[in-house]
């Protein structure tokens, strides 16, 4: 099967799947409305909080392991292991942040009673732990990468970090950024379609669809503009 035929086949299948989903959801709309949408959103919030807590604990473990490795001295044999360990710890805390934000935003416990207040305080502490963990992990990463000396408290830290990276690190960063962009460009239409289908349900409106389309628009504009700038005006792009 040629790639062209396969492309149109996938396109056709997606259209059919979308149509089926629309009709199924339309038929189930009344029964789905009986289940409170708010309840589902709040339940997702609690699950997010639980996942964030697990990720933070695992990240702490990796951070301690990385710290121990560095403390015992880095050599050619354990450098890659230390680097990988710190990279995992860093990624886990980054992933935990949006989950915690959502969990706190959807927190419904009463702050008038002690238990509610304690729960909220725990979530706040978890958020702070993740922020401080990121600072600590970045400082630990700088021990492995002494050529990157940008202060973690600098408001332009990300740009300075990128400027101070050498060629292999830049290649990794560029490849990761490209892959993540490609993934997002595939995911935006899927999420947009899901929100379009859900917009008919009670508790949902067209607002989530608008937000997704807006993010999609900003992302694709930013990608296109920067690609144009780097290709045609490289001196401006490096500023």
């Amino acid at each position: 099967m040629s790639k062209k035929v396969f492309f149109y086949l996938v396109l056709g299948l997606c259209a059919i799947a979308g149509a089926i989903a629309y009709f199924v959801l339309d038929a189930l709309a009344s029964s789905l409305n009986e289940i409170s949408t708010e309840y589902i959103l709040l339940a997702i919030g609690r699950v997010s909080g639980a996942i964030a807590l697990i990720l933070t604990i695992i990240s702490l473990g990796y951070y301690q392991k990385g710290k121990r490795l560095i403390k015992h001295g880095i050599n050619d044999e354990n450098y890659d292991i230390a680097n990988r360990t710190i990279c995992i710890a860093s990624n886990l805390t980054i992933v935990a942040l949006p989950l915690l934000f959502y969990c706190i935003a959807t927190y419904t416990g009463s702050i008038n009673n002690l238990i509610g207040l304690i729960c909220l305080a725990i979530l706040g502490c978890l958020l702070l732990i993740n922020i401080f963990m990121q600072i600590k992990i970045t400082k630990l990463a700088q021990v492995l990468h002494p050529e990157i000396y940008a202060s973690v408290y600098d408001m332009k830290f990300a740009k300075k970090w990128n400027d101070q990276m050498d060629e292999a690190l830049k290649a990794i960063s560029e490849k990761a950024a490209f892959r993540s962009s490609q993934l997002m460009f595939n995911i935006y239409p899927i999420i947009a379609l899901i929100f379009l289908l859900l917009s008919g349900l009670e508790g949902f409106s067209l607002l989530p669809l608008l937000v997704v389309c807006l993010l999609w628009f900003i992302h694709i504009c930013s990608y296109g503009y920067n690609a144009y700038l780097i290709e045609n005006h490289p001196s401006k792009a490096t500023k």
Partner: protein
Amino acid sequence: MPLYNRVKELRARLNINQQELGNMVGVSRQTISQIERGDYNPSILLALKLAHVFNVSCETVFYLEGEFDDE
């Protein structure tokens, strides 16, 4: 076509670690590690710098499959 290299072997001959070699050619330890593992193909500039440090030709450090020339 994969690019092979003898960076690890030549570095061992000089008796220096990855960090020291990285400092000599102006890159990080991670870059040297990635080159040695064959996960990263260096720029021409870095390849020339490495060859200069090892005091050999660039082709001695980096070679394509079937072109290995044991000097």
